[in-house]
């Protein structure tokens, strides 16, 4: 069943961009709908917190 991959070949692309904006912008210039996430790492990258939250959240 290859329908899922084919969807991306045939249906209009709807893209969620996670990270820097430049790639999202070049997609928008081509008329693609892009949803940009203003992403930051979990706990802003504080590893001690990430470890704690692994157990608690």
């Amino acid at each position, binding site marked *: 069943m290859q329908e899922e991959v084919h969807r991306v070949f045939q249906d209009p692309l*709807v893209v969620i961009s996670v990270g820097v904006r430049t790639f999202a912008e070049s997609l928008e210039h081509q008329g693609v709908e892009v949803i940009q996430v203003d992403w930051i790492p979990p706990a802003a990258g504080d590893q001690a917190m990430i470890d704690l939250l692994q157990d608690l959240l």
Partner: protein
Amino acid sequence: MATGIVVRKNQYYDSVFLMGVNKRLSQMRGVTQTAVLMGTEKNKQLLVDIGIRGDQVATVQASDLIVAVIAETKQVVDEVLGNLDQALLAVEGDAPRSGLRTFEDALAAAPSANLALFTIPGEYVYREARTALEAGLNVFIFSSNVPVEEELKLKELASERHLLVMGPDCGTSILGGVGIGFANAVRQGRIAAIGPSGTGLQEFTTLVHHAGYGISHALGTGSHDLSDRIGGITTYAALEALEQDPQTDVVAIIAKPPGANTLRGLGERLSTYSKPVVTCFLGVRSAEAASHGTRRVARTIDDAARLAVECFMGAESDAPTGLSDQELQHVADVRQRWSAAQKYLRGVFAGGTFCYQAQQIMQERGLRIHSNVPLDLGLGLENPNTSVGHTVLDMGDDAYTLGRPHPMIDPTMRKQRITLEGQDPEVAVLLVDFILGQNASGDPVGDLVDPIQRARETAQARDGELTVVASICGTEADYQDLSLQRRLLEDAGVIVFPSSTRAALFCAQLLEPG
């Protein structure tokens, strides 16, 4: 010191709004102090406290607006009060940020999303990409440094769900005419490409375009996909999808050497593929001269493009392969202009695949080529900052890009290296690639033309000539203006080729003994 007051009768403004207006006025040049207040008793006392008094203030009512300015000169006072209406307009903010902070937020806001694009640091990719796959999205991961075990888990999950993981470390894809990441503007058509190298895909697609044909899809697989650890999961998934795709007639695979097991498995799969396939595994030495049924074997990217077109046309192409007679004659002319000391080639590449290809082409002609990404492990560089003999460099390698953007975007490291190589009196040939397309530098040639010219001048001053050979990967539809880029190079005395294959062939010819 000058003071001025304006009273606007019966003009009520919210006190906090006025605080903002006051801030803006007080920041104007030459202003000592401002007050923007409604005329309440308390506020009138505040004005007295800062030295503003008089009849005008005394008679003001609570529903009137007072604006007082103390400034260096009367001119400043008049200017500030004259611009009062402008200042009382509300300030529009910047365009609102999306306010979406997590992938889950975005999914909730866009339930019809079908592709997730990740450019976040590699250590965080797994969790987010997994969420995307579980939600039924295909995934494009530009991020590098994703641990290989995580890449494997993601691709196994994708496999179960019949989804594609393009990446990690994937710079290019084209889906139904839409370029993702670094991509050239190429005609849509019926030839597809798969590969772990962005620049390999880019050049293949531009060559197909220049031949007059078009691309259905170009699918990046990520740089590790064909390793034995990953086993080509995305490559297989891409092959399957393209086999079923009604828009695709021919498939090409452009890659650097796959793992041995993967290569074998792939060969078996391709022997039963229902559409013509062209493979180009750069640096693979095994004797695979003959084509098997639907599979044609290309030795270079140029070959791959030519064979793909032939498969599509069902007829042999009459496009010339190899160098023309004119180009061969040019080789002799060029060699004559070198000084006695000049003998070495230095390649300074932005495209890693072009670097591999150059090594393969030259090694086939018996030349010993060193590199920071050596095809022959015995010819690695001890110090990536010091070239030895003939050396070609992938400037996109970590050794040069830590903390910097890729050389396709940021010319700094290549400029430095070109200058360095230009100072070496034994360097005869400088080989450079220029890559156009979306997300690449706005002026790739302009970025490097100065160090190139200075290097040529340095050689001239030593009674020799530095031969600069370049390829441009791009089409007339790319935003950087291909013909202008070409002209800029030619004006600087650079010998320009339309593909990295031809540029490398020319250099190989230049260096061949005798």
